[in-house]
């Protein structure tokens, strides 16, 4: 017989479960389930933080990412530096050393930070695997000195402790933050690598300049393609349709407002005072009742009233979203992908379950892209690349749903199209519905899938027109070639028969040939073709033979010397 364990003993043990244990057991949720993924997640958290911080402060981001192999094998140092607003010294330990601090979970605002568990998780992972604490250097402005510190996490109490604090008299940046940590990791190139992540960040964030150095010392640089930050997203109140019962009850408990009516009309968006009264009455609650007195049963009725089909609540306002934008997306695509044809579409905002969202699609076709591979889908949620679980992602499914043959591409049943194509899909939302806790794939909502499909189709039609015109232009060019070849024979025959030089005759025949094969001109003048094709800002055609776009590694002189930080 096993010894009976008392509840008291159990509760004592439960208390002993430390944050480190929690972390170790939930690695997969946090993105540290493999050595390779740990490296990517760490970089990703740091870069997301940097971008968010810069944008919130209205600074055009410039970010340096450095990876170095550390001693001991399977150990790497990750160093991420930004030109952001810096961190107030007193706050730094909690930001880097306390799990879930400053989490944006409950904010209804489009932000990157929604994706991960935060940089503190990476710091903890580093400390757990190498014993080394995270190092931070930060400076909030030219007027104040930079400081450096190390943040040690007490894994029993989840409390950070700052050690080795010191002032730095001389730091390269006027303002900014550098975080450096060592962790057990594996560095590999290719799919789902740090390189791929940064490349995709560069595409979706054309306003950011990125510098990267891999463990072998190879560098990549992405110079910003647009000179303004995205419009800052506004925070909105929850829409009644997007609120779950538990959240509703919590809101009723914690509201500052005195009555149910006030709570409904002021804590939610799109609920007018009259509507609030009506909703409360329908749930059998006195609109004047105090919100925290509402019992679970009544709350359930209220919840049903809110979601009742007869309750007509206007969709939430959508100005809380910050799409990448047409020109910005084109800039991002062209700086990251060498193609011949680009098309971009930004859909109008839409709503799923009370949550505003907006879909953007970009396409790059031709050029250097491999012609015989399946198309590549780049998925983004709030500008953050999604690199895992492509197959189960709503975005991938929506792209496969489209009949690509209509656009002149080949596609096997139930597969992505094949051809020199990259499809970028960006989902911006105050609340991105992820299909799993690891937040790497978008859940399959009909509204979202439909919006993605429509945007892909719009771009696809533009691509199809271009591809077909190009195919026609090619066949026209072949026709012209044949005509011109034969014209020479015809002219020399007529010259022999008439005994006269027939220069004018020849010119006239060539002129007719040119006119008959007008479309062939498209191959010679790409710009003209684009103009003709569609006077649209959504399309960009790049002459594949002309001077290439600026390569990812720019000339030294092109970098902004003012904010230049040498990679250490």
């Amino acid at each position, binding site marked *: 017989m096993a010894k009976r364990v008392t509840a008291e003993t159990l509760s004592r043990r439960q208390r002993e479960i430390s944050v480190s244990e929690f972390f170790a057991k939930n690695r997969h949720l946090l993105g540290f389930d493999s050595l390779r993924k740990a490296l990517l997640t760490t970089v990703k958290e740091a870069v997301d933080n940097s971008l968010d911080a810069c944008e919130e402060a209205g600074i055009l981001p410039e970010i340096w990412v450095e990876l170095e192999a550390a001693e001991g094998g399977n150990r790497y140092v990750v160093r991420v530096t930004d030109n952001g607003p810096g961190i107030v010294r007193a706050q730094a330990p909690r930001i880097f050393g306390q799990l879930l601090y400053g989490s944006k979970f409950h904010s209804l605002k489009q932000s990157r930070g929604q994706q991960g568990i935060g940089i503190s998780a990476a710091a903890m992972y580093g400390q757990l695997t190498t014993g080394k604490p995270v190092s931070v250097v930060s400076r909030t402005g030219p007027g104040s000195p930079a400081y450096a510190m190390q943040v040690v996490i007490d894994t029993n109490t989840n409390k950070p402790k700052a050690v080795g604090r010191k002032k730095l008299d001389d730091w390269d940046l006027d303002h900014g933050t550098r975080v450096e940590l060592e962790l057990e990791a594996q560095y590999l190139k290719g799919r789902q690598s740090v390189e791929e992540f940064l490349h995709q960040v560069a595409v979706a964030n054309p306003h950011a300049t990125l510098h990267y150095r891999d463990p072998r010392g190879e560098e990549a640089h992405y110079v910003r393609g647009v000179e303004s930050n995205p419009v800052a997203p506004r925070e909105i109140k929850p829409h009644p349709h997007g609120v779950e019962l538990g959240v509703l009850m919590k809101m009723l408990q914690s509201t500052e407002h005195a009555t149910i009516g006030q709570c409904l009309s002021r804590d939610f968006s799109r609920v007018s005072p009259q509507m609030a009264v009506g909703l409360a009455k329908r749930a059998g609650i006195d609109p004047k009742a105090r919100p925290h007195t509402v019992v679970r049963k009544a709350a359930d009725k209220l919840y049903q009233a809110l979601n009742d089909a007869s309750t007509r609540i206007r969709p939430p306002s959508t100005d809380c979203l910050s799409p990448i934008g047409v020109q910005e997306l084109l800039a991002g695509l062209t700086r990251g992908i060498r193609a011949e044809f680009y098309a971009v579409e930004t859909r109008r905002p839409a709503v799923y379950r009370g949550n505003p969202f907006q879909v953007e699609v970009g396409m790059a076709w031709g050029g250097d892209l491999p012609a015989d591979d399946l198309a590549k889908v780049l998925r983004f949620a709030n500008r953050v690349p999604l690199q895992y679980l492509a197959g189960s992602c709503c975005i991938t499914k929506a792209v496969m749903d489209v009949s690509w043959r209509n656009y002149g591409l080949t596609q096997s049943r139930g597969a992505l199209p094949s051809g020199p194509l990259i499809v970028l899909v960006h989902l911006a939302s105050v609340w991105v519905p992820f299909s799993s806790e690891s937040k790497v794939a978008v859940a399959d909502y009909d509204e979202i899938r439909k919006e993605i499909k429509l945007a892909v189709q719009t771009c696809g039609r533009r691509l199809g027109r271009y591809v077909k015109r190009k195919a026609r232009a090619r066949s026209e060019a072949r*026709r012209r*070639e*044949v*005509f011109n*070849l*034969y*014209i*020479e*024979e*015809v002219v*020399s*025959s*007529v010259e*022999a*028969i*008439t005994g006269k030089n*027939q220069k004018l*005759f020849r010119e*006239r*025949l060539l*002129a*007719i*040939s040119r006119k*008959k094969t007008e479309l062939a001109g498209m191959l010679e003048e790409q710009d003209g073709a684009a103009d003709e094709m569609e006077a649209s800002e959504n399309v960009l055609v790049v002459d594949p033979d002309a001077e290439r776009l600026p390569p990812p590694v720019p000339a030294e002189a092109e970098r902004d010397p003012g904010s230049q930080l040498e990679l250490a």
Partner: protein
Amino acid sequence: MTSDRLRIPASLDARAKIEHLAKKTIAMARREVDPYVDIPSRTLSNVTFSKRKKIIEMGDATQRRSLFNLNQARKYMQTLLVARGCTQLLDERKTTSIRDLYYMSKHTLADGKENTFEGQEESDPIIEDLEVTLGALREELHLFAAKRGSVVGPLTLVDAGDVIDLSRMGSGGWSVPGIVEPETIRFVGHGAKFILLVEKEAVWARLNEDKFWKRHDCILVTGQGQPPRGVRRLLYRMVHELKLPLYVFVDNDPWGYYIHSVVKQGSIGLAFESKRMAVPKARFIGLSSFDPGAYDLSEDVSIRLNDQDRSRAKEILNYEWFKAKAWQREIRNMLSAGVKWELEALSSKGLSFVTEEFLPKKIAERDWL
């Protein structure tokens, strides 16, 4: 009509006609019209059988051949290349074979891949196109086909200045040149009662060896299969100038029937030449599908009709000039027998059966069509 504008005046000589064609082409380009040539169609649908003249005549239908049509451009170019080649022959006062013209006109195009002509089978039809378009015969364009066909018999003629006695031609006979116009060939005298055209050269050789022509006073001709234009033109001249009847002796199969009909009424492809080549009085002397029975030929030497034979037989059954009852009966009899007979089958009755018995009897009994 645009096609009228291109019509080439018949009064011009061949050289002027070609020049006319070239100038029209230049004019079209000046008016920004795609240059084209309207070529009289040499197809079944564009021929009619004149019941009165008993020859096949060409209709007015034309086919447009444009430079700026990918399906026609090559042939358009080739038409002008052939015209150019003929110009050169005419200017240099030389005559050459159509094979020579093919070589004169053949070269690789500027792209280094394509040739102006890939073979003589490509240039020959273009020459015929040019003939009908210009309304100028091959001879007028200073061209002739490779010569084919032989003649022996009691006939004396002058060929390019040489007096030739066709009864003294040994076993090979006199070979018929590509051009047999009066400028080259003149008849001097003859002692013949009829002309016998034999499809097969081997049978012709048998008849020659047996001196059939000597015993029966005939001019013995072979065209080695479908007679070339030189042979047909020579037959026409002999029939008209020497006033001799012409008997046609061919295999008993659809191809044999057709050879006879070409000699008699003209061909679809060269319908424009019928009036100077067709011999409506020509007689089909054999082999008839009724001959094997009448002359007791062994079934062993017959050949079963194949699908191609049958469909060709059905085709010619529908030709206007095969509509005569006797012909319908003749062809249907072959179809129902299901066999065909080559001339050589007669040899099964003895090597000289054809000369000693068959032909003399057929002629004596006027057993022909």
